[in-house]
């Protein structure tokens, strides 16, 4: 099986032709959350200016910093969303993600204990879901966000089937 492995120059290169990427709507979901948080902070800064003897310049500076940070995170979200990818191999599933802290997890189908499909309110509104795999190790952390419901359901069923076929004792 080891000889199927291509020579990998990049540690996070796809095992086959390419990673299957997740929906760009995931970035939208994150950006909506970001906008909510930014608005809350902004409201707080504006509210502060109504306090007597409060130097407004503090709110101005904080607001400027906020704009810069939001712009940076906005851009980062785009890159981070594009960094998510997964690939199904014969015996295991590979998931990769991250820009600054990159990671790649290899989960054997035979080790999966359960597969979750979940979606929060924003994600549901945008029509994307998260598939999460659990093994007996708490550190496995293999979730794939930003899948369309049909793809997610297919993936879940496929993973569950393979898990059952290859299931091994602990």
């Amino acid at each position, binding site marked *: *099986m*080891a000889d199927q*492995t291509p020579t*990998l*120059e*990049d*540690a*996070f*290169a796809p*095992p086959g032709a390419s990673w299957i990427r997740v929906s760009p709507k995931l970035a939208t979901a994150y950006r909506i959350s970001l906008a909510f948080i930014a608005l809350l902070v902004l409201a707080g800064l504006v509210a502060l200016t109504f306090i007597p003897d409060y130097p407004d310049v503090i709110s101005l500076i904080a607001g400027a910093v906020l704009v810069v940070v939001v712009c940076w995170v906005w851009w980062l979200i785009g890159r981070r969303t594009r960094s998510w990818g997964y690939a199904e191999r014969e*015996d*295991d599933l590979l998931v990769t993600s*991250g820009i*600054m*802290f*990159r*990671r*790649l*997890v*290899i*989960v*054997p189908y*035979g*080790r999966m*204990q*359960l597969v979750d499909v979940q979606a929060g309110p924003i994600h549901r509104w945008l029509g994307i879901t998260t598939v999460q795999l*659990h*093994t*007996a*190790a*708490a*550190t*496995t*952390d*293999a979730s794939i966000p930003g899948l369309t419901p049909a793809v997610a359901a297919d993936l879940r069923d496929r993973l569950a089937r393979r898990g059952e076929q*290859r299931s*091994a*004792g*602990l």
Partner: protein
Amino acid sequence: MSGQEQDPLAFEIVKPGRSAPDAQGRRRVHPWTPFIEGVRWWPGGIVAGVTLAAQLDVKLGSGAILVGLAGLVAVTLLGMAWAYLGWQRRTFWFDDDGDLRVDSGVLSRNERRLQLSRLQSVDVLQPLVARVAGLAEVRVEVAGAGDSKINLQYLTLREATDLRNEIIARSAGVRHDVAEAPENVLVRVPPGDLVVSLLLRAETWLLLAVSVLLLVTTVATNGVAGIGFLVVGGIPVFQVFTQFSRYYDFTVAESPDGLRLRHGLLQKTRQTVPPGRVQAVGFVQPFLWRKRGWVRVRLNVAGTSASTQGNGNESFTENVLLPVAPWPVALAVVARVLPGVDLQAIPTIPAPERSRRRAWIQWRQLAVGWDDQVFITRGGRITERWDVVPHARTQSVRVTQGIWQRSLGLASVHVDSTPGAVKIVGLHRDAADARRLAQEQADRAAEARAGDRSLRWVAQQHLAGSSPAAAASASPSADPGESILSSAHIEIPDLGSMPSPVEPHPGEAPES
């Protein structure tokens, strides 16, 4: 050997024997259980109450004492009444499939069934109060997500041991009405060594320093800072005593139904770890132990912290295989847990030299290695660690890379095991190597899983025609001279200069 030595603290208040099953063959725990439950909190509760009273400056008159006593009696009686209801509703039995079933619950009923083919460990515990009464608690854990254990408290010690034997025999797939499997004591840790080993840990001195600091500030502030003791839960240095008390008279014995660990000064614990249930093994050597060639051995056993799954909260209990032992003894015991694996013969590959810019203290120690059965990592400079995971127990494999690592072209390889103290991380490998290593490890794990046969192990051994003891002694022993000479191997300190305070069983002399 039955492994039941005379306990000086047992007054045999309770007559040994089995509780009679009822019409449906269901059994109850011992009728004294509600009483024990009612008084069990006394030592801790009284200490906490007195401390609180002292903090609140309660005048110590006869009135205060009366109120305190009345409260004590009331809470105890209430606790006993509640525990009596619980006792009445709690029954256990083996069902037609041979699995252990427990029904319990006063307000909400709880019916639990443990599939014994997935058994992970069986412990017989004797907290101090129960021990005085001659009672014991049985704790059974099986593999599974979420809460997958049963506590049966209390049974007579005899009954508890019988139950443990029956559970293990059923799980192993052999007749369960046969006598207890014979055992063979491998190691007994002398109390003197345990004391010295605790004194030689930096942790002990840190706790002592914190204790002194707390005491001094408490005195200096006329007791105001005493609240700090409540926050940290007593005088910190007492934790060292807790460790001593927990691992006092640590005995490792081998039997066909697994390794048996017995330890405890006040609370006696008897653990049984069936073969093949060990998820990972870790060796730890604090700096001051190095000269003596001592090492501590820890285990990951599935199920012990399954309740923490999902969130990053790690409140697992440390599973200790040996609190302190010389290297050769530790290796000999681990060879029983991982039969056929010779850790000293596994060649290891160090991390590349540029890793010094990321891990400037420990980079020289960083290494990974593997053979056809286990994956091993090494790290730590001051406190050294060696962590071992069998391929067949690998859950998943990860490669991670931080910003700094990326700029150096490094990445770390994690082999995920079940939650526990042992974490297997090959830190700071060459990035491309790390990826290759991870994929090869995943393939090795898949191969090992295909050949894994640890369920119903005794029945399978009969099929294969060998006993676990035979398998352990037949394990290939490598040429030790080679492994000491080669720097790429785990270094075993020279044994000639070292006293051997831990006596192994005469028949089980470790390889030197």
